[in-house]
């Protein structure tokens, strides 16, 4: 078992063996979860602070359940209730949380790089729960965990990620993780949301959905954040759905066993046809369940190490 760090800031810096360590441990925790029993590897007496400075429901709740399933004490701070609204700097907030005796901080923040900034500021393990358009490692790890459950080894498998890639931390973390495990990753979407420069990071880039779907072993759809991009990145949601949405006709192009993932929340009828989201190929709800086991593994690996003063 190889694990060389106290913080999980992203998948880009991880070694393959470290990813394997998390996934192995998650598998173990998933069995405990199914039996509803407290694992012997737990975080009893540890204090986990969820610092969520951007709206989030499922990630925050999943981290809370994961921490509680390890018997840790969890405190969740949402941006509305923190002192940030009063103009406190992130550095000061972090130092205060450290002073309150946190054993690990799970942070969600709209600014890329803020978990790294925290980890340099205070000697407390930092777990990135999504930072701007940078990384969302726990989401990618649960995606990879789910993909492996369904597809076995990912080496040589074709994974298509379709949607708003430019602003997506999920796409970036998946790219790093999947590439390390030997998969081929294709980013698909309008040219304004899938710039060619992603090729330099190791992804295939395509603007042709139909062609990409034919080869896919799995397709991951990303939420279209129309409140942000509809004015300048594509003409309208209707046009997006027409050109890039996963509808019944397009779903027929998929291999029969190809699986469909979505990190949620879903816009039914926009990036995915409602019935496809509920079809037998969809693993969207398994992703959510697996998310708890994966986050238990992350919390255990990061928070179980004594903090040096």
């Amino acid at each position, binding site marked *: 078992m190889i694990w060389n760090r106290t913080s999980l800031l992203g998948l*880009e810096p991880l070694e393959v063996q470290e990813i394997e360590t998390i996934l192995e441990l998650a598998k173990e925790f998933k069995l405990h979860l199914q039996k509803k029993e407290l694992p012997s590897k737990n975080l009893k007496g540890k204090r986990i602070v969820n610092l969520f400075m951007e709206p989030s429901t499922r990630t925050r709740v999943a981290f809370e359940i994961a921490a509680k399933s390890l018997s840790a004490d969890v405190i969740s701070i949402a941006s509305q209730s923190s002192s940030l609204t009063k103009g406190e*700097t*992130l*550095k000061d907030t972090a130092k205060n949380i450290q002073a309150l005796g946190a054993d690990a901080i799970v942070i969600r*923040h709209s*600014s*890329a*790089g*803020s978990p*790294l*900034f925290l980890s340099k*500021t205070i000697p407390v393990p930092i777990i990135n729960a999504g*930072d*701007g*358009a*940078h*990384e969302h490692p726990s989401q990618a790890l649960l995606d990879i965990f789910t993909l492996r459950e369904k597809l076995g080894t990912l080496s040589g498998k074709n994974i298509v990620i379709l949607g708003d890639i430019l602003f997506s*931390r999920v796409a*970036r973390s998946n790219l790093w993780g999947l590439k390390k495990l030997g998969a081929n990753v294709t980013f698909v979407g309008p040219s304004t949301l899938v*710039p060619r*420069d*992603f090729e*330099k*990071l190791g992804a295939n880039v395509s603007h042709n959905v139909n062609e990409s779907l034919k080869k896919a072993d799995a397709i991951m759809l990303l939420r279209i954040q129309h409140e942000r991009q509809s004015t300048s990145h594509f003409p309208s949601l209707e046009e997006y759905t027409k050109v890039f949405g996963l509808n019944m006709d397009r779903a027929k192009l998929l291999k029969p066993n190809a699986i469909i993932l979505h990190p949620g929340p879903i816009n039914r009828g926009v990036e995915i046809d409602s019935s496809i989201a509920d079809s037998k190929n969809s693993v969207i709800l398994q992703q959510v369940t697996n998310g708890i086991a994966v986050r238990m593994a992350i919390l255990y690996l990061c928070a179980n190490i004594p903090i040096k003063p």
Partner: protein
Amino acid sequence: MNILHLKNGQVVDPSSETNEVKDLWVQGSKFVKEEEIKGQAPIEVLDLRDKLILPGFVDLRCHPRNVTRGSTENISSITKTAAQGGFTSILAMPDISPSIDNPGDARYARECADRDAVINFHLAGALTENLNGKKLSPIGSLKESGVVAITDCPKSTQNNEIFVKGVEYAAMFNLPVIDFPRELSLSKYGTAHDSSVALAMGLGGYPRMAEELFVQRSITVSRNLGVPLHLSSISSKGSVELIYEAKSKGINVTADTTPHHLFFTDARIKDYNTNFKTHPPLREQSDQEAIIKGLEEGTIDAICSAHEPHQLYLKQAEYDVAPAGVTSLETCFSAVYTRLSENSDDIAMKCAKWLSYNPAKILKIAGGDLEPGNQADFVVVNPQEGKIFTEHETLSLSTNNPFYEMPLKPVVEKTFVSGKVVYE
């Protein structure tokens, strides 16, 4: 009057293309010829054997933040920092508190500068009121109140009509106009140059296009109105190409770049270090090479410090929240020399051209040479001595300088303004 004899120094002066060991004489505040002081004994002799004497540096862009007081920077601290870096004249951008968009505040700043500045402190007046690009500021009255140039830097007037009229109007008063080329609709949320580096980091939004479109605008405006325009802080290869073409057609545009764009690329921002969040952002190797070539060939005329002080707590923040801009007055010359001395002959002469002679010509102000009869603004440099700058010795009130902890060579040993030592 006091006579100062500068003996045995290597005199580097682009105005007369001098680069030789020779003696200089200063009487009072001015350089004089030896025969003018014949028979009078010098009060002071400085033996400058193995030292360089360059015209004092003239900065085309810096931001003092406050006229007086304040904890980021003010006229007193910025002029001391400038003197530390060998600058004898600086041009303050109008985004001071209070902003230089009206004669009253211009006069107040002028008054404070006359009291607090240790070097020649020049003011740029705003092109538009509050620098917000909506209504022209009273440019004629600003000139009467002592401004020597007009600009909305660090902003750029987005409205083309107001920009064109402002340039035309300022030309009537023979005031140089400086544009900081940034088209805002393409770079509104820009935190970094759009490259694969920024893409991986989840940053970006300040593409080359945002600069190049407005470089082209200035070229077109200059050509059609027949008036000079200066482009500040050039960071992109495409801009250098546009300026090259414009100059070869005889269009009257000039341009500068910054020491950080010569020294660093966007690879430096990889760990979200906000001291490399510059304004405009650091770009790629190809941009840097084009800018250096542009300097060597004369497409880029000058190097400005782009000294933008920010308080530490503001820089110690999330990358997209932290303000852009770095300090560099004290390290500018040393950084430029260090960066370009390897591949460039006669680097001292070139520095004198880019940092002294050309900026003074662009601003139409005194300085930039070592000619008898002119103000004795000069620097003494020990070419053998290098240094690692740190935040502890800077005279600036801010420490957001990306050149700290790097070996730079050489450093300024002494700075003279009007024949008097202002830094040693």
